[in-house]
């Protein structure tokens, strides 16, 4: 289990599935996760250039939602038995057998939106310029996803899926509530 930008990376076993979780009690809705995500997926790796010069403006792969005092940021959870992978009409979405990530081959995407219709979190975004879906890739070339690394309030947790199993996890969750 890790948190914020001080990641004890050794804590994680190789090949284990990690996810970004949100602790909505401490999310302030500052949108920094969104901004860093946009920057990470921008052509220019410069904040000003990415936001002011790049057209179209790079899309974030996550979404920050706010309602009253409640705010949270959500992104693809790389579900076990991911409904988007099952529903994808073209084979764009697949589960990487090694990393266990749900990955998108944008070359194959036709932007039909079937994945969006089945995603329980509404986590997929439409790149209207290129008519393609974009999604969270958990920043594969980074030690920690940039959204987590740059969250100033440690509202985002990058941690192993408890027991590595969705069902157990939900059960555990209800037990603690």
């Amino acid at each position, binding site marked *: *289990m890790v948190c914020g930008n001080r990641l004890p990376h050794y804590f994680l076993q190789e090949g284990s599935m990690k996810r970004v979780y949100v602790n909505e009690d401490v999310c302030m809705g500052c949108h920094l996760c969104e901004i860093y995500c946009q920057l990470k997926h921008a052509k220019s790796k410069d904040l000003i250039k990415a936001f002011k010069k790049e057209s179209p403006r790079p899309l974030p792969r996550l979404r920050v939602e706010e309602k009253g005092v409640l705010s949270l940021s959500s992104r693809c959870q790389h579900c076990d038995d991911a409904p988007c992978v099952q529903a994808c009409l073209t084979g764009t979405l697949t589960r990487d057998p090694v990393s266990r990530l749900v990955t998108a081959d944008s070359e194959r995407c036709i932007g039909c939106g079937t994945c969006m219709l089945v995603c329980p979190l509404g986590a997929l975004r439409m790149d209207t310029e290129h008519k393609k879906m974009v999604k969270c890739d958990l920043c594969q070339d980074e030690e920690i996803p940039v959204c987590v690394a740059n969250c100033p309030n440690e509202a985002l947790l990058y941690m192993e899926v408890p027991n590595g199993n969705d069902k157990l996890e939900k059960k555990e969750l209800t037990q603690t509530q």
Partner: protein
Amino acid sequence: MSVPEKIKYLIIGNSAGGIGAAEAIREVDKKGTINVISDEPYPAYSRPLISDYLAGDYTVEKMLYRPVDFYEKNSIKTILGDKVIQLDTEKHTVKLESIKPLTYQKLLLATGGSPIIPRIEGNGLQGVFTFNKLDDARSIDEFLNRYTKKIRAVVIGGGLIGASVTEALLKREVKVTIVEMKDRILNTILDEETSAMEAEALVECGVEIITDHTAVSINSYFPGEVSGISLDDGRSIPCDMVVIAVGVQPRLDFIKNSGIKVNRGVIVDRQMQTSVADVYACGDVAEAFDFIYRENRLTPIWPNAYAGGRTAGRNMAGIPDKYPGGTAMNAVKYFGVKIVSAGLVVPPDESYETLREVHDHIYRKIILRDGKLAGMVFAGDIEKSGIVYNLMKDGTDVSSFKEAIISDDFGLTSLPDDIRQAKLATPPDKYISVVTSIEEPEEIVVEE
């Protein structure tokens, strides 16, 4: 005499359902023999992309549903371009057109659907096509390539297939007239408002739409060639080609006489097993559980075929699994108009409640039954439609927040805390407290 080897998993059909089953089997059984039979000579390809192929945007390679090495990597033997002609469920054998009979342990019928051809005069003429598989797109492509003049086409049927062939034909600069029997196009998957949106987009692209009429004959002036069609009101429309797109029906060919229980499609239980032991079915050929109608129904759509195939595959491999159920569900993007729909699109009677939000190019409609979602149609902004679809699938009572579902700022934060937190799998407190205790010493170091 050698006893023919029993194939552990025999799959008839090489599309979404067959692939779904093969993948599910390989997840739990790495060794058992899998054979896939298809009368189409291609590796599995994305059927919806035949429209893009005809339009000229896609090659066959780009249409492949799985990487080229898929079959090899998963040790799946393919028998392509051959047709099953007989099934003997007692002997567990399948007879094919050109090779020796095969014996199976578990069989999956994923034969899909075939186009319905109305019995009208002239339907066998050259220049009359259907549009369900890659070879159909190829035939139309070859036909168009023969001419330099502007081609006029009549598409009979304004459903999904009719709309996708129209989109492709327009890109090939063909003048298209759609003849729809009902009062509006895409009437099974869209409601009145959204089907009007699509109709408007089509007309803007120069498509002529004739509703409330049917074609009674396809006419020929030069022998063998199409010269036009006649409508039920006596009107005739000149054209050079006709695409029949009135719908698909389960492909029951050899299944009909096999003793397997069939209604409109092959009847399956929640394990996707047919009435006969060791025989499973999924996809367009099967009548599987629909969670909105709460009964077995044909829902001939790609994602349900794949999901049903997975369930069948797991059960075939001995892992008990229950099909969660599917329902009609579509995402369309014809002519740039983005619409998704699922479940009911029009309330069947007064007992259903309908909520609607319309402004600019945004359209949201939900249909409720006893406080639970029974249908949805979203147009314009579809990114968060999945949250709604899953509430519907889970049978969540949404009466306390139904208004929020159609509002502009609907999202996870609109959901009651317990539903939202379960969806996000918010980490239990104990994990968060563990994290905090790790952090504390480091904070002190920072202060030094």
